[in-house]
């Protein structure tokens, strides 16, 4: 009891004498430390990650379809088998969703050539291949565009001279890359008609300088990732055999 009193007294004296001695910030030092292979990993963290990693690896390695050939984005001039595959799958997977929500059909699909991030190799197709082909989280959106805006799109595609993949649109250019004919689902484009164009949210937001998506009549977000559309499609089919066709060609004579 008396000892406690002593401590209390000491404290009391100190408080009086310490009061004028606050801590002041005198120095700041800042740096960054690179995390690289010179640091050995903490074992229990690694052990904790392992089952998650193993599950993902196993799933990414699971075979979901078979590719009849190897398809690359450089194989083809204005349209490629791999690009045609992607847009045709987007149409097939997204149209029923759009139809059930909006009561209309998608008229065409447009993606971009730069968005094809990998090849489809011949043989067993694994989920990993789809993650490599489409590593981004882009979602499918449907934009309601007037025929006039479709004209801007055609001008863009003609000037780009690239195999930007599209589905349901057919475009033929002359030797100077000027459009000769264009049709959607086999019909000539009507400037007054509204077309429902499926694309990615990335392109809708001016990705690849595609400025023709604005202004528009309306936007439908299907909340469906392009990658998931590809995976869902591949799980549904046994084999894929996409081809280069005449949807986007140049008459060179």
């Amino acid at each position, binding site marked *: 009891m008396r000892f406690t009193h002593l401590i209390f007294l000491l404290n009391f004296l100190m408080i009086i004498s310490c009061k004028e001695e606050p801590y002041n910030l005198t120095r700041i030092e800042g740096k960054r430390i*690179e995390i690289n292979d010179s*640091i050995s990993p903490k074992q*229990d*963290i690694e052990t904790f990650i392992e089952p998650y990693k193993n599950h*993902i690896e196993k799933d990414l390695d699971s075979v979901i379809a078979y590719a009849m050939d190897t398809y690359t984005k450089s194989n083809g001039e204005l349209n490629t088998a791999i690009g045609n595959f992607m847009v045709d799958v987007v149409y097939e997977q997204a149209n029923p969703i759009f139809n059930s929500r909006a009561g209309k059909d998608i008229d065409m699909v447009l993606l971009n050539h730069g968005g094809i991030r990998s090849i489809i190799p011949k043989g067993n197709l694994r989920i990993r291949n789809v993650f490599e082909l489409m590593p981004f989280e882009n979602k499918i959106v449907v934009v309601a565009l007037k025929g006039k805006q479709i004209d801007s799109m055609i001008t863009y595609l003609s000037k780009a001279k690239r195999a930007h993949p599209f589905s349901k649109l057919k475009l033929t250019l002359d030797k100077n890359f000027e459009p000769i004919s264009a049709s959607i689902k086999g019909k000539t484009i009507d400037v007054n008609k509204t077309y429902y164009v499926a694309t990615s949210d990335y392109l809708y937001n001016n990705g690849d300088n595609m400025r023709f998506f604005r202004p528009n009549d309306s936007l439908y977000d299907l909340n469906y990732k392009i990658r998931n559309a590809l995976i869902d499609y591949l799980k549904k089919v046994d084999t894929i055999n996409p081809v280069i066709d005449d949807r986007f060609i140049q008459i060179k004579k």
Partner: protein
Amino acid sequence: MKRRDFIQQATAGAALATLGGYGLQSFSAVRKKKITILHTNDVHSHITPFGPEDGRNANKGGVARRAALIDTIRKENPNSLLLDAGDIFQGTPYFNYYGGELEFKLMSKLKYDAATIGNHDFDNGINGLFTQLPHAEFDFLSANYDFSNTVMDTHTKPYKVFIKEGIKIGVFGLGIELKGLVDPMMFKETKYLDPIEITQDMTRILKTEEQCDLIICLSHLGYHYKNTPDKVSDLSLAAATSDIDLIIGGHTHTFLPKPTIVKNKDGHNMLVNQVGCYGIYLGQIDFYFDTNNNKSANGTSIIV
């Protein structure tokens, strides 16, 4: 406040008393304290290190290595805080498969003290973020997102005060405007409030009411926007406000080789830091305090 001071002083006194005469003699000497702030941002679900084949970041990053590094630093200075400036989610299949569960569990194992919310943390919708909260044993700090009409209501705090060896550290969080960046279907009724106005409230509360010795802003606003200088960023926020000692930033994936020294509204130097992305770097800022009044009269020296 005064009572807390008393308790701390009493504890110190008790320790000194056991030392007898020495304690009282050494009392007049300069006493020092060091607070270490460790930080990451935009880790984007990078759990395992980049492989040896990676073009840009070969063999870099990795949560298990970060854990080992943090352990070493904490052993050296237990008065450390570990903070993250948002965009924890999205970027590897770990997020696609587990929705952020593993990211939060690992951050809890690494004993993160707090994080703020980045735009990509809404990638599975606000419900997707909410669903993963039980896996996070750390606080989410967000002062300028009003979540009151959403499932996140009451699950974030505007700020938190940490006390390390008697030093009070106030940390508050700021998020970027979601409109135009995140689909409204994802963030639902989250309201974005002006970061500069909110910061003025926060610094007043932390400095005047909470009497903090250090004020840290965890920001996902982005470092600086060259082409749109009017857009609020860490650099513009720093210059427009008072009393922040350190802004830990994110969003723009800016790899700062060293923290940037910025003059605040009152002309005082403060720091803005950001360590790029993907857990390739850990930021470390050490704040040294002492009781030497002469020294403090010369101001604070910043060594970066």
